[in-house]
């Protein structure tokens, strides 16, 4: 069992590194791996190649790694906390909450005659997404304390998403073409919109979220048995909830803010990790899901560049079969 775990970690790491390099070669202009390497190392390469690799593709690949890991870890935490295999930032409406925040910011601010620039704008988008995600999470948590039925929580998440969709449409309807276009492109999900300035905000936020998730590993393991058992084993349930919510808000909120709503990854990847590692221990699952998330999003990014399609269409098409498989296998979830 130990060797299987070690082997899987090695394989996933290798896959991540390989896909990371491939991701740098793929794009509007195909750049051979040798030149990519040269550009990265500061060796002999055309100035344009160096620019493309370093300023565009490297940034995008780093974002893919961070976003993939962040979404997978937030999904894993949600699934354990709500003891629900179908929980995830997207299904529970947390991504929608973040979207609403961003919609208010991108569409609402111009309506009010406010327009931010550069760093202020990125901070505004992130802040709005965090607020939106945290608000939805708070409501879901409050309801789930009273109502234990998984179905109700899922339906609630769907209703939130629909409600948010309606509000966003109203905002879109009222908005001018320019803001509208910016928002529509944002909703398609893109790893490429992240500038170096935004990366400086995204990376620390994701790192902090992941650190909080690591701090929650033992509580999450105890929560496998449910809240009651966890409490009788000395767990401070309120602190744990706060910790996990803060972590999830940072992870899912930040990624949604800068990359748009990337669906299904947070829901599906934890299941992939469980399937691979055949282990329920979060000391294994958490790094496993993070790595798998990075691998999956890098892969999706490569495919989306090949087909020149938005990345969230690829994650959805890839994620849906996994989710269907989980539902079919887990007939007893309700």
């Amino acid at each position: 069992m130990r060797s299987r775990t070690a082997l899987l970690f090695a394989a996933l790491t290798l896959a991540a590194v390989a896909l990371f390099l491939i991701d740098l070669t793929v794009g509007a202009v195909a750049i051979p791996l040798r030149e990519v390497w040269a550009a990265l190392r500061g060796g002999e390469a055309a100035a344009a190649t160096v620019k493309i690799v370093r300023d565009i593709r490297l940034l995008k690949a780093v974002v893919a790694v961070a976003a993939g890991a962040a979404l997978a870890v937030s999904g894993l935490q949600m699934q354990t906390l709500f003891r629900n295999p179908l929980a995830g930032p997207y299904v529970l409406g947390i991504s929608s909450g973040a979207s609403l925040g961003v919609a208010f910011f991108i569409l609402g601010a111009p309506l009010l005659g406010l327009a931010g620039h550069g760093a202020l704008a990125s901070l505004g988008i992130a802040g709005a997404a965090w607020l939106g995600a945290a608000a939805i999470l708070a409501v879901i948590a409050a309801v789930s304390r009273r109502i234990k039925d998984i179905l109700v929580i899922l339906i609630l998440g769907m209703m939130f998403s629909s409600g948010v969709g309606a509000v966003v449409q109203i905002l879109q309807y009222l908005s001018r073409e320019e803001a509208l276009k910016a928002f529509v492109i944002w909703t398609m999900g893109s790893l490429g919109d992240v500038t170096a300035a935004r990366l400086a905000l995204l990376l620390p936020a994701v790192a902090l979220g992941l650190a909080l998730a690591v701090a929650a590993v033992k509580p999450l393991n105890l929560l496998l048995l449910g809240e009651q058992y966890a409490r009788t084993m000395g767990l401070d349930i309120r602190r744990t909830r706060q910790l996990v919510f803060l972590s999830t808000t940072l992870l899912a909120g930040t990624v949604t803010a800068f990359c748009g709503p990337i669906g299904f990854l947070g829901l599906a990847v934890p299941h992939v990790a469980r399937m691979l590692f055949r282990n329920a221990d979060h000391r294994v699952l958490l790094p496993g899901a993070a790595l798998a998330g990075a691998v999956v999003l890098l892969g999706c990014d490569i495919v989306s560049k090949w087909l020149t399609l938005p990345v969230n269409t690829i994650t959805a098409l890839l994620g849906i079969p996994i989710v269907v498989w989980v539902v079919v296998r887990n007939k007893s979830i309700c």
Partner: protein
Amino acid sequence: MIRLEALTLGYGPRTLLDAVSAELPAGTLTALIGRNGTGKSTLLRALAGLGPVRGGRVLLDGRPLDATPPQELARTVAFVTTERVRIADLRCRDLVALGRAPYTNWIGRMQAEDSAVVAHALDRVGMADYADRTLDRMSDGESQRVMIARALAQQTPIILLDEPTSFLDLPNRYELCTLLARLAHEERKCILFSTHELDIALSLCDAVALIDPPQLHLLPPDEMIRSGRIERLFGSDTVRFDTSGGFFRIRR
């Protein structure tokens, strides 16, 4: 040792137990019996620190429950709930190891001593051979034993169990209760479990705690049989209690 001092418990507007006092010493197995909805679970949950106490107080091993911090409480009392635990990919050994949570560090690192406690706990409940099995591939009786091993791994002087026999077949019910009796006697634990099996309660336990709302009566089994309380509480038009045999008969 569990000591109730004028304990009052309620649920919503109802008072279930009113100023109840009792003492359950170490090294005894006590069955908690009573009709549906009389507060067996409420009492167990309150003793485990999960439910509210309306009045009076609970002393666990001499310490007041409400003055015991959660970590300390987890080293004093272990609880096995009615919930059936079915977690895919969770091996028995890892589940029992969760019982070491009050003793391990922030990430739950197991020391050699912790592993030894886990192995011993699995051995005590006769599940040592199942250590590497996952929970979703075990019968109800087996998983119940593993949950008890988890409680043992917590190394608490007090263990509470809420209807541990409810999903088990007849031989398994008796085996489980004999196991509990052995643990109480050999490891000097104070074990209290709720049950609807009056015959088990009256034949295998050291004491029987009967909830006769809003009172609690704690008596040895033979005295409980003679007291006539069981007939009064559980007897009906269809069944009557046979005081000489200690079991119920259908009225004809």
